[in-house]
C-alpha cells in the first residue's frame, strides 16, 4: 500500500476527521471530502509548477491541516517531502536548499513567511493561501495523482540534532506505511478517538503518530497556539496525545492551577499519554501516581521511526514498550541497541559516519530485551571511564541529583582534567548555596573517584537559546561548551 492508495480508500470510506482551532478558539470540523479536495488542488498546483517524481519540496509549517494536505499532495505524486521546523534558522534552510536541490519552499502562514523573508528571497517562499489563490486558475484533475510505489522515497526526515550535527534520513513509502500501520494495530483508535497534536509535526515521533491517527480514522485536533498546554488538553478533552518528558513536567506544573478540572479529565477520559524522547525524571513519578495518570512510554528515532510502544493491552512497567518488529532489533555485545532500518538511508551531505552498518542503525542506547519488551538503561555516550579506570554512567548520577526539588535539569560529564562535572538548571527553590550543599551531600556518600569535582549553574535551558532540540532533548555538547569556562570547584 502507498499513501496515495490510502487516500483513494478515504475517497470511498470518508471516515477521516480533522479539527482545527479557529480565531474564536473553538474547533471547526474538516472532513475527508475537504481533505481530499484540498490535496487535489495542491497536486494540480504542484504539477503546474512542474514538480515531478523525485523532486524535493520543502514545507515550513506549524501543526495544522494544511501541513497534512501538503504532505499528502507532495508524497502521493511521487515528490519528496522535506518537512522542516518553522523555528529553524534561515541559514539552515539555505543549506538544505543547496544540498537537496529544493524545487519549492512552502510556508504555512504569512507570519512564517515573514520570519524567513529577511534572509531568504521572499519569492522563494510560497504561503498556503497564495497556493490556494493560484489554484483558482488551474483546472483540477478528477482523480488524485497516484505515482508512488512502496520502494520510492517519500520524505527526508531531519534529526533534531542532540549531537554536533543534524542528520537527514530518507524513508520510502513502504517503510513509513509499514511502520505506521503496524503501530496502528497496537491501539484501538477509531473515528470517536480525539487525538491532540502538540509536538512539532515535522518531528518523526509526532509525524508517525499523525499517520497512525489517519490510518485509524481518529479525529486529529491541532493544538491552539493561543492556549496553554493544559488548556488545549482540557478544551479538546483529548483521548490521546504524544508528549516528551519536558512538556509532561510543564503539564503537571500547570495542572496545579486547575487541579479539580484536570483530575476530572484524567478520571473520566483516562487519556492515552504517549511519551518518548528521553527518560521520565524520577521526581515526576510521585505526581503521576498521586493523580492516577498512566504514561505509555515508547521508543523510536528519526532513523528507525517507531520501534516499540507500551499500550494498555501490551504494557510492562519501566519498559519502552513492546517491540513492533522483533526481527529488526538486536543488542550487540556491548549492550548497544541496533535497529535494522531496511531501505532507509542518510543524505550524504549531512554526515552520519558509522551510524548505520549493513543496514543496522547504531542507536548508542544501552538496552536489553525481555519477552519482546525493550528496556533502556542508558546512553553509550553517557558512560565514561574515570582516571581510576572505573566506568561511571552520567545518567545515573543525573537521575540521583534530579530527585532534588532544587534541580530542574542537570547534565553530568567527565573531563580528563577536571574530573566529574555537573551543570545545573535550577528550579525556583534552587540557589548556589543550596546546590553546593546538595553536591557536598552527594559526595559525602561516595569515595573520592566518584565525586563531583566541578559544577556550574546555568540559565534556563530552552529550544530558542539552543540548549534543547525542537523535540526538547538536551544538547549536551552545546551546554558543555557554553558553561565549561564557568565551572566552580567543589571545596
Amino acid at each position: 500500500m502507498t499513501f496515495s492508495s490510502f487516500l483513494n480508500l478515504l475517497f470511498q470510506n470518508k471516515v477521516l476527521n480533522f479539527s482545527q482551532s479557529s480565531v474564536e478558539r473553538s474547533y471547526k470540523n474538516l472532513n475527508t471530502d475537504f481533505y481530499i479536495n484540498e490535496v487535489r488542488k495542491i497536486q494540480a498546483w504542484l504539477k503546474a509548477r512542474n514538480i515531478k517524481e523525485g523532486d524535493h519540496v520543502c514545507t515550513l509549517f506549524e501543526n495544522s491541516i494544511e501541513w497534512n494536505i501538503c504532505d499528502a499532495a507532495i508524497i502521493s505524486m511521487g515528490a519528496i517531502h522535506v518537512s522542516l521546523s518553522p523555528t529553524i534558522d534561515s541559514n539552515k534552510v539555505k543549506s538544505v536548499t543547496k544540498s537537496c536541490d529544493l524545487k519549492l519552499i512552502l510556508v504555512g502562514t504569512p507570519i512564517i513567511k515573514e520570519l524567513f523573508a529577511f534572509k531568504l528571497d521572499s519569492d522563494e517562499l510560497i504561503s498556503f493561501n497564495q497556493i490556494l489563490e493560484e489554484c483558482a486558475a488551474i483546472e483540477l484533475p478528477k482523480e488524485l495523482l497516484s505515482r508512488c510505489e512502496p520502494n520510492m522515497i517519500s520524505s527526508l526526515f531531519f534529526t533534531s540534532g542532540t549531537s554536533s550535527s543534524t542528520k537527514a534520513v530518507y524513508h520510502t513509502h513502504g517503510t513509513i506505511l509499514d511502520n505506521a500501520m503496524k503501530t496502528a494495530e497496537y491501539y484501538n483508535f477509531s473515528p470517536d478517538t480525539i487525538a491532540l497534536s502538540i509536538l512539532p509535526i515535522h518531528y518523526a515521533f509526532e509525524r508517525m503518530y499523525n499517520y497512525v491517527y489517519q490510518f485509524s480514522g481518529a479525529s486529529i485536533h491541532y493544538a491552539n497556539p493561543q492556549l496553554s498546554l493544559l488548556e488545549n488538553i482540557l478544551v479538546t478533552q483529548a483521548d490521546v496525545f504524544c508528549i516528551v518528558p519536558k512538556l509532561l513536567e510543564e503539564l503537571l506544573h500547570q495542572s496545579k492551577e486547575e487541579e479539580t478540572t484536570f483530575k476530572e479529565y484524567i478520571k473520566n477520559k483516562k487519556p492515552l499519554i504517549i511519551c518518548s524522547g528521553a527518560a521520565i525524571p524520577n521526581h515526576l513519578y510521585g505526581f503521576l501516581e498521586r493523580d492516577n495518570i498512566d504514561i505509555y512510554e515508547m521508543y523510536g528515532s528519526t532513523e528507525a521511526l517507531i520501534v516499540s510502544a507500551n499500550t494498555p493491552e501490551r504494557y510492562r512497567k519501566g519498559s519502552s514498550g513492546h517491540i513492533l518488529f522483533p526481527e529488526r532489533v538486536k543488542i550487540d555485545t556491548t549492550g548497544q541497541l541496533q535497529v535494522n532500518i531496511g531501505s532507509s538511508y542518510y543524505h550524504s551531505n549531512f554526515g552520519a559516519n558509522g551510524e548505520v552498518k549493513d543496514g543496522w542503525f547504531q542507536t548508542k542506547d544501552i538496552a536489553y530485551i525481555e519477552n519482546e519488551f525493550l528496556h533502556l538503561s542508558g546512553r553509550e555516550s553517557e558512560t565514561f571511564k574515570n582516571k581510576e579506570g572505573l566506568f561511571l554512567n552520567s545518567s545515573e548520577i543525573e537521575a540521583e541529583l534530579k530527585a532534588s526539588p532544587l534541580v530542574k535539569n542537570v547534565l553530568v560529564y567527565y573531563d580528563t582534567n577536571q574530573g566529574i562535572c555537573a551543570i545545573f538548571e535550577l528550579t525556583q527553590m534552587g540557589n548556589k548555596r543550596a546546590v553546593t550543599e546538595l553536591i557536598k551531600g552527594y559526595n559525602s556518600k561516595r569515595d573520592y573517584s566518584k565525586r563531583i569535582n566541578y559544577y556550574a549553574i546555568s540559565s534556563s535551558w530552552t529550544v530558542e537559546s539552543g540548549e534543547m532540540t525542537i523535540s526538547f532533548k538536551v544538547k549536551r555538547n552545546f551546554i558543555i561548551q557554553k558553561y565549561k569556562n564557568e565551572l566552580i570547584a567543589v571545596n
Partner: protein
Amino acid sequence: MKNKNIDPIHFIHEVFGFLNDSKLNFSDNFKKLTTWNSLNAVIIHHKIVQAYGVELNYEIFNTLETVEDLYQAVINKLNNAS
C-alpha cells in the same frame, strides 16, 4: 521604531497580533504561550525586533510571567540602550 514610551495597546497589537486574540491583555500569562510552543517564542522575539529594534535574549523569556513583564523587559532594554 524606537520609542521608550510604548503604548501598551500598541505593544500588544504589534507583538501578539499574530495570535488574533482580541482578549489578550497585560495580566495574561506570557509563559503559557511559549513553554510548549517554540514557534510562538520565535515569532514574539521576531516581532519585538521588528517593531522596537530590541533583541531580547531568549533566556529572559523564561523569567517572565506575564505580558506586562515582557513589555517591561522591552522598555528596560530600550532605556539601557539609550
